[in-house]
């Protein structure tokens, strides 16, 4: 499988090239075009996980696109103007802000986790998605705005409205800084890890 992100940074679209019988798992409504030998199946992946996903800001259902009788292509896009990035799955996985998840390889398991109630008042959801994969895979994330990757070495303070995804090895806590609510990230283990975030975001509480 190959992910190509085109038309960056504002109107980005991912072209996923699937090998025969390969599948890609995508968010509801993400598909904008596909070759006709690709078939789509809608699943909830389990009632409870579907409901939890709904609280997380994602939709109850997910779509799986599979290429039959040869290679296929699927075009995926986020709903709003902005950038998309492909993240290679690591051992620890990633936390992804709800609504930033666009697609992934089928071996990536996503689980909705409680992000912290303080972030609820900060305008972001209570829940975040945790994405893990037992084998190499990829995760496609999208944001309303540009996506910038930042290295966290020690302590990094980020506005909760601007988070897209971060390495699961980072510890984080939500707190108040100055006049607004922001999230402060503390690094637990001393390793250098990356933290993508969008440059602009429509934050209703801003």
């Amino acid at each position: 499988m190959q992910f190509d992100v085109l038309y960056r940074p504002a109107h980005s679209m991912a072209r996923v090239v699937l090998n025969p019988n390969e599948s890609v798992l995508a968010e509801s409504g993400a598909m904008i075009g596909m070759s006709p030998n690709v078939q789509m199946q809608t699943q909830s992946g389990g009632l409870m996980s579907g409901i939890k996903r709904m609280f997380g800001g994602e939709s109850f259902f997910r779509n799986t696109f599979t290429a039959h009788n040869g290679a296929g292509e699927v075009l995926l896009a986020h709903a709003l103007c902005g950038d998309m990035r492909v993240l290679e799955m690591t051992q620890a996985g990633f936390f992804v802000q709800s609504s930033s998840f666009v697609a992934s390889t089928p071996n990536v398991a996503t689980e909705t986790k409680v992000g912290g109630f303080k972030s609820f008042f900060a305008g972001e959801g209570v829940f975040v998605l945790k994405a893990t994969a037992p084998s190499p895979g990829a995760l496609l994330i999208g944001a309303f705005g540009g996506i910038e990757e930042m290295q966290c070495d020690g302590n990094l303070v980020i506005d909760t409205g601007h988070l897209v995804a971060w390495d699961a090895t980072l510890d984080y806590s939500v707190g108040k800084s100055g006049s607004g609510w922001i999230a402060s990230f503390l690094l637990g283990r001393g390793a250098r890890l990356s933290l993508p975030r969008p440059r602009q975001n429509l934050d209703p509480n801003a």
Partner: protein
Amino acid sequence: MRYQILQKPDFAAIRVHFDQGGEQLVCESAAMLARDSAIDMKTQMQGGLSLPPSASCSAAKASSPTPSPRASPGRRCGSRLVPKAISEVLEMNGQYPVFLSSGAFLAAPPSVQIDTKWQGARGFFSGAGLFLLQASGYGPLFFSAYGGIHAVDVGPYGYTCDTGHVVGFTGGLNYTVNKVGGLKSLFFSGEGLVCTFTGQGRLWISTRNSSSLVNFLHPFRPVKSNG
């Protein structure tokens, strides 16, 4: 006539340079950003009155300014693209017509004839509109859409595209509107209906659609509370 697409790909604008006196460019109403004062602009109805006057589907048909430069060459005009963000240009060579969804047409010289084509019932569902604009002839055809414009060369197997993301396609293609996946997918997949294109030709897809932006912004609009 020379042209140049500026600020590609995000906020494209087209700069058109008229080389000779008497050259003309037909634009969508309100498309002009700026022009040299030596260029005349005239507004007229385009496409005839084959549509009933109440048909407001094809906004581009209502009035089209026709700038025509007077004496000296080297004048130019620009074009505006809000809410559309990307512009593309296609050099028409008279061989096949191009169908554009209503609203996608931006500008073309008079050597490209623009006409409307009724799509029938499937047009209601196709997202491209009940009417498609048919462009044929010679010369550059400028069209735009909200989002990036991705061109797909459709081969013998065809191609499937989300309704609402179709910008235009060449005349060799035909399309049908159907649902993707099963009945459950129709309601729950978030995809809804798709257009399946068959034949040989080129299809232009926009990478965003404005209804997603509207749905996102809708909860933030100020509302009066009742009583």
